[in-house]
């Protein structure tokens, strides 16, 4: 009955199903972890933006124009130095021209948004917020660029680990399944071998399964009786021929 190939054919569908299921689970977790990570990163970006904006708006409230803000350059330089993930910062005037810049790639012109927003792309995230004076007019904007390297590194590590976990789970469950199936088939083989042995020896083998022993016993009894009856019939028919 059992061959290795047939066994493989029985295990393979389970392996495919397990791979699909664990792959989907891993994907789901990855999806969710990235979602949380992005949320955390954006909340950090938002906090930095809000902090700097409060600083600058305090200056605007005191009546300075955006070009005259005291120690603005020093503030953004310090911020850039303290946060390793920050690529550049710039303070823009109302038309979008950079007034103060920090960081090597800081743009000279940047579009001023109409509300606070965070744009993500493959290389990182850019957060922009409006600077308003005490009259409520937009005096300028603040733009901060964060590098996406940290995010990409974390995501790569997470992807690798979750993929490995899915693979391990698939292999483990498939191995478990294959082992249990092999045991099951071994058991079937053993029962059939016992039955075969019992039929060949005309008595149930010692130590064999109770159900098998009963069945084989009954078959042997029936077969023996049938054989006796058939032989008797044959003798009866043959004997009558001799008499005739």
């Amino acid at each position, binding site marked *: 009955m059992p061959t290795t190939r047939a066994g493989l054919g029985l295990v393979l569908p389970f392996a495919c199903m397990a791979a699909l299921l664990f792959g989907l689970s891993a*994907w789901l977790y990855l999806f969710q972890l990235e979602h949380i990570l992005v949320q955390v990163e954006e909340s950090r970006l938002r906090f930095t933006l809000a902090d700097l904006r409060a600083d600058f708006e305090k200056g605007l409230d005191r009546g300075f124009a955006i070009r005259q803000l005291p120690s603005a350059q020093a503030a953004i330089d310090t911020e850039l130095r303290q946060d390793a993930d920050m690529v550049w910062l710039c303070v823009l005037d109302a038309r979008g021209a950079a007034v103060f810049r920090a960081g090597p790639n800081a743009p000279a012109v940047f579009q001023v948004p109409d509300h606070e927003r965070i744009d993500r792309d493959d290389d990182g995230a850019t957060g922009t917020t409006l600077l308003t004076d005490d009259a409520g007019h937009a005096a300028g904007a603040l733009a901060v660029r964060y590098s996406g390297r940290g995010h990409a590194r974390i995501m790569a590590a997470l992807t690798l680990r979750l993929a490995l976990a899915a693979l391990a789970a698939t292999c483990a469950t498939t191995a478990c399944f294959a082992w249990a199936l092999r045991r099951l088939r071994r058991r079937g083989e053993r029962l059939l071998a016992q039955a075969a042995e019992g039929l060949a020896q005309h008595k149930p083998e010692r130590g064999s399964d109770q159900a098998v022993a009963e069945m084989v016993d009954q078959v042997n009894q029936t077969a023996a009786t049938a054989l006796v009856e058939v032989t008797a019939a044959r003798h009866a028919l043959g004997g009558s021929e001799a008499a005739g």
Partner: protein
Amino acid sequence: MSTQTRRDSRLYARPLRRFIAVALAAMLCAQLAMSYYAWTLADAFVVPALERKAENTGLAIARNLTRTLAAGVPWEKLEGVEPWFDEILGANPDLAYVVLTDGEGHVLVRAGHGGEVIAPEQYVAATREVERRFVTYGEVLVGVDRRFITSRIQTIRNDTGALLLAGLVLTFELAWFAAALGFTGPMRQAAEVLGRMGSGDFRYRLQPSLHLPFAQAVNHLQDRLNHAYAGVARLAADQRRWAYAQPVIKRLRSLYRFADGGYALELAPDRGVVVRTLAFIAFFAEALAQPFLPLYGAGLPTALPGWLAGALPLCALLGGTALALPLARDWTTQAGRRHSFIAGSLIAALGCAAGAWVPDFEVFVVARATAGIGYALLLIAVLPESWAGGERRTSRTGTALLAAAFAIAQVCAPPLGGVIADTVGPRAVFLLAALLVLGAGGIAAAMLDERRPAGAGARVRFLGAPAEPPAPTRRQRALVWSAAVAGTVARFEFGGFLLAAVPLWLTATNHSTASIGRYQMALGLVPILFIPLFRKLAWRSDSYQLLLVLAVALAAGGTVPFLRPAILPGQLAGLGMIAAGITLGLTVQQVAVTRARRLMELRTFVPPTPLPLRALEWAALPAGPLAAALLLQLRGPGFALAMLAGVFIAGAAAFALVRACAGREDA
């Protein structure tokens, strides 16, 4: 017979149960381990990002405090720090607490909760010194809660729970399949042949592929007996002994059954499990797309209004199936079920794969109709009447097997499809369905045989003089009509309620695709939960009237939140009640019809269903989504659900009326 079955099942029942338990336990453990691992990953990778935010916050607070000191406010007279901290915590829910201490570590201000005494390991804190001109005045501690991240992970627990459940059901199905092919099937066959031999039936040989020594032993024994008997039969055939040989032969024949001519029949292995698995794969593949099909169709560019565009692809699928079934039946009788299944799987796979890359709505509708035709061919090849003639199973157990495959597919496929559609995209679902159907075709090519359906010749009736069947009595007509009513309403509600109205209503109430899949899974579980009830009730007495009334009451009660303004949880409860009522009622009707049909088959005969009624039954399948879409378009999703429940109630009333008419004549 029953004691023999019990003794047979002793051979395989316990090892089989143990095997399935091991498979389920392995799957459960692996899923739980994976969830735990994802948690630890969140702790290792996402918490540091949150920690950096805490650092930034600490830095900003320290800088502001330093600036205040620089403005001339003495450290001891700092004011308004606590409201400020509270404001920061209010704006940043991911921070747990902010603490300001003096130079010696005494707490000056504490805002938020956490990190005090209990379980400080759940918190991560970033520390910043407040210093000015090389004097350290104090420290700012900003703490974040690890549980904030893990609680965010828990928001997908519904999805992972649905995956876990679907995984367990799938594991059970596959374990059952593997065990049936690798263990239970051979053991059953061995038990059957041993049982037959034990009771004196020596006609069947075994194929050596079962188990060589066993088959040899059995065949050897049977050969000996059959040859011995053949010798006796030869002697008895002699004219001279005819008279007194007859009683001997008669006696032997009354006690035993030998193979005629000394050659035994081959006992073919039972392939019922293969057929069931093939049907399961087909049902599963189709149910994968169920949660998002209406939404996907409505999202394609079309001039049709939204709801109608959502339901039309469903209509095309079900209509394709319903129209192709009669043709497919004829074709299958000629081509054989293996060819039919392979052709069906190819067509259905083409339709599914095309669904992933359709440019516009019309092509999508055509692709769905193609898939429907493919499914019709598949279905015909696995329907009981196509194979019951060959295998040693009655058509009744065959239908039960198919129904079980359908029910299980309805439970585990929609949540999986919904999750895949949400995370990977609907295209992946269509591709997966196409691959699955192709795989089923491969299995069919390897394992099905070229047997023509039983009764292929009997269908050619017009050659002989057709015997005029006796005119059906009123009771027989009532049975046919009640069966037609039950079947029509069941098909209408399956297409209209489960496949169209429920997803569209859930979409209208802002549920995601994954949660639509979960609701469909829950609705699929309802009939399975009713099975024990029926085991206990329906077969003992005529309790079906009571159950039908209960079902109608449930459905009617469920419509209340949809007809009056109600909150969403109430409407969800109403949806559950309607679904439970409809499922219960339709199952009751089906059980009652089956029971009456069986009783009538014992007494007289059951007249065939007239063609218009059969056409009506099949037309109800595509009509369901169409009616649901029209109702949605006219009066909104809630009203449509209520109206579909109304259709069920009307159907139940008609059913009861037909049964009552038949009953009066009998009395």
